């Protein structure tokens, strides 16, 4: 055997790895590469024209801005939810804890029509906003609501285990050195959990950028105002503008990768510094 793998007595390595690579190529790699080949048919100039089109730029801006705001909201409230679930006990806590994963389990289309009904001007929530002349559904605000729902579990689930791992001793040490509760939180607990908070934020952000099903029902989908990039891809596809759709997809993909890369770099950096 070559140096490609270390010796092992366990069987079926070739079979398992071979199947893995074949399946991965057929389902994921070859189809994804089609994306880049198709974009290449546009040429550099054509590609640039598509992605700098007013409507495309507007949709990218709406997508990234609403995703960012939704991820921020989730970072703040997700931290509080994680804190409450780790530190306190109250009746029904286990049910609440399980329910946090609802956005992972609930189909996005269901979330979409539900949030639209809830925040429409005659809906349960919408009527209160309407009374103050605030429109939520069919505006970018509605998009933020949907993306907040979609991203809710990420921050909670990344922060929860890390927060539970903060040793009581460390907090006690800080208190016995004269730190008040807020100082203990801001100087000792927060630095320990903020890499996880950042990870959760990035995950929620990345998920929101690609989100489609939950958004289109509540967004109103007005070009330049509340049209998200994934919807524009679908629109181009329906006009048989495959190359145009693909160009937008490639831009989104590259931006998501950049985000993921930054995330990995961040994790690597924090694990190097904070290792036990």
């Amino acid at each position, binding site marked *: 055997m070559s140096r490609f793998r270390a010796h092992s007595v366990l069987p079926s390595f070739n079979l398992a790895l071979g199947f893995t690579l074949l399946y991965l190529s057929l389902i994921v790699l070859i189809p*994804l590469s089609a994306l880049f080949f198709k974009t290449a048919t546009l040429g550099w100039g054509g590609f640039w024209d598509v992605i700098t089109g007013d409507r495309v730029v507007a949709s990218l801006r709406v997508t990234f801005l609403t995703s960012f705001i939704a991820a921020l909201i989730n970072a703040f409230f997700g931290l509080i*939810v994680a804190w409450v679930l780790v530190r306190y006990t109250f009746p029904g806590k286990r049910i609440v804890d399980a329910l946090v994963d609802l956005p992972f389990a609930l189909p996005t*289309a*269901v979330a979409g029509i539900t949030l639209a009904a*809830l925040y429409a001007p005659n809906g349960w929530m919408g009527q209160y906003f309407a009374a103050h002349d605030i429109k939520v559904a069919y505006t970018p605000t509605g998009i933020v609501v949907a993306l907040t729902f979609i991203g809710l579990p990420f921050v909670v689930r990344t922060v929860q285990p890390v927060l539970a791992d903060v040793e009581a001793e460390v907090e006690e040490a800080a208190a016995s050195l004269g730190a008040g509760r807020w100082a203990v939180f801001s100087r000792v607990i927060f630095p320990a959990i903020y890499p996880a908070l950042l990870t959760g934020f990035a995950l929620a952000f990345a998920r929101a950028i690609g989100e489609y099903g939950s958004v289109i029902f509540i967004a109103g989908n007005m070009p330049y105002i509340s049209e998200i990039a994934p919807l524009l891809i679908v629109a181009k596809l329906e006009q048989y503008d495959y190359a145009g759709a693909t160009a937008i997809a490639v831009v*989104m993909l590259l931006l998501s990768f950049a985000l993921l890369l930054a995330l990995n770099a961040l994790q690597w950096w924090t694990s190097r510094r904070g290792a036990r």
Partner: protein
Amino acid sequence: MSTRSVQRKISTHESLGVTLLLIGVALSYLLLFLGLPLATVFVEAFKKGWELYLSALMEPDAWAAIKLTLIAAGIAVPANLVFGVAAAWAIAKFEFKGKSLLITLIDLPFAVSPVVSGLVYVLLFGAQGWFGHWLQAHDIRLIFAVPGIVLATIFVTFPFIARELIPLMQSQGKEEEEAAVSLGASGWQTFWRVTLPNIKWGLLYGVILCNARAMGEFGAVSVVSGHIRGLTNTMPLHVEILYNEYNFVAAFAVASLLALLALLTLVIKSLVEWQAKRSGEPLH
């Protein structure tokens, strides 16, 4: 409400007021973003009474959608299960070059927008796609047909099971398998009698999440489906069509089935987590 810090004042706990405030904020937030939407699904579905609810579900197009959803999940989940086990076996039990690249590639579908996941298959198999002419010449339809829906579903649920199994099997090491082989067990015997019992909860966990996503996927499936009623509509797509026709009761009736599926998923997931904890097989 009993909380840990409702004793006397110790400086390693928040005051009662802060505690109650935080619990209040957290629960309000969850109620607003989770509780209310969940309740809305069922309220809207039953708005016009049981009869309309049931008739919306008994409609042939609804049945066709349910059937197609079950078919898509019924193919996607086992396919990704086999893949997940094979990938985890190779990655967790062997040392080879390029392993971390492989793990990253497996995670790829999570980084791709659902719409793009559908788009790539249109580019391959659509009328203008790479294989479009060849498929047309042989009168095979993949896009705007059931195979496309299945493919898109497989793509978006691709990493779920592998992702669950790889860290689990890595943390368990390979000593037990090596012991089994040294005692004369064959490859299959080793897998069935040693490996599988050790990962059964993680496997189930991955399958449940994979299934929930497979049945609920909207964006990717929407792009490849063509929205032909009774033929290429899954349940989420059927919900969309009904909603866009302003048939809200029917839309929410079908949606309520999907919401029940989601709740069932959460219940089973909690049970699996609980069982895994009891049997000392750590999920992540």
